């Protein structure tokens, strides 16, 4: 990734135009493409049903559309200050914002799609709780489904103390820096543990 120029606080930031955005997309390296793709995938997994059936491609497209809108309209969309922030971190920031908006605008009363209820059992089988649910009973709570997913992932790290500690720290909202500083885990062990968790979750 190219380094952004130093910020000149005496000037208004230059907002990227359409041609700048087109060029930034064209210039994406394969690593940047992968970074944006995986970032979007994990954000969507985290949203669960709050994504309302939208996937990682929808998140990427919503984010970039917002940047294009911002390039043409000072009052709307997201404005990329191209000399201050690189394109990839900026687009990830927009995705954070869009995902957060999707999550906030979701009501817990919204109907479930059956596909959203399918969970993977400890034996690796996909199962829909609807298959066993008598019609008169209420639908299973998403909270229970999320818990089943979390426990299932955690169970696979039974002998990996670092992965368990990182995972539980994440569940509490701790950042990588807080795990290193607060829990005293060396950075190298943190990175290795995160890599094992990422590999395992991606494979599920």
């Amino acid at each position, binding site marked *: 990734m190219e380094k952004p120029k130093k910020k000149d606080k005496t000037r208004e930031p230059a907002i990227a135009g359409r041609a700048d955005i087109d060029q930034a997309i064209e210039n994406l390296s394969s690593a*940047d493409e992968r970074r944006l793709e995986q*970032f979007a995938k994990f954000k969507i997994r*985290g949203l669960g049903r709050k994504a309302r059936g939208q996937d990682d491609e929808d998140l990427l*497209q919503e984010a970039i559309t917002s940047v294009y809108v911002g390039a043409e309209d000072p009052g709307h969309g997201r404005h990329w200050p191209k000399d201050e922030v690189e394109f990839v971190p900026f687009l990830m920031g927009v995705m954070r914002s869009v995902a957060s908006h999707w*999550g906030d605008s979701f009501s817990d009363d919204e109907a479930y799609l059956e596909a959203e209820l399918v969970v993977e059992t400890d034996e690796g089988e996909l199962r829909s709780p609807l298959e066993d649910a008598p019609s008169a009973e209420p639908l299973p709570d998403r909270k229970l489904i999320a818990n089943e997913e*979390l426990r299932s992932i955690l169970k696979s790290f039974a002998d990996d103390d670092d992965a368990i500690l990182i*995972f539980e720290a994440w569940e509490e909202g701790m950042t990588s820096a807080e795990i290193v500083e607060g829990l005293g885990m060396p950075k190298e062990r943190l990175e290795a543990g995160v890599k094992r968790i990422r590999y395992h979750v991606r494979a599920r």
Partner: protein
Amino acid sequence: MANSKSHEEQYRLVMDALAESVAELSDFDLEQEFKEEPPPRTKQILKAAAKKRAQTKLRAARARLEESRQAIHGRSYDLPKTPAEQRALLDAVIASKLASGSVLLTAQFRDRRSTSDADVESTLRQLDALGILQDFRKLKGL
């Protein structure tokens, strides 16, 4: 570690942490970790969004143009009947606007003798739709 958050919130936090972990990976580590995966389609996805937006804007512009065409053609106009009278009216309006310094002429209208009758009528319709003919008539007491 005691958990104080809902399971849904914990699940989101874990996935968000994994997203951030990808954001922080070096290019080399990313390439290594995902080398077995099919190539990413991110550029293609982003370009498709840009194209879709451009098409949406084009459709909206066409709809606006069609709307204004309909507005001009759909209404009744109070224009002189003959081409000669229409040309005289257009000349008078333009002369009046030039005299007041409130108009800039395009090259097309600098020599109105070369303007077709159809263009003269179309221009008068547009001036009428804009209220300019009405203002002119009021000014001249017509």
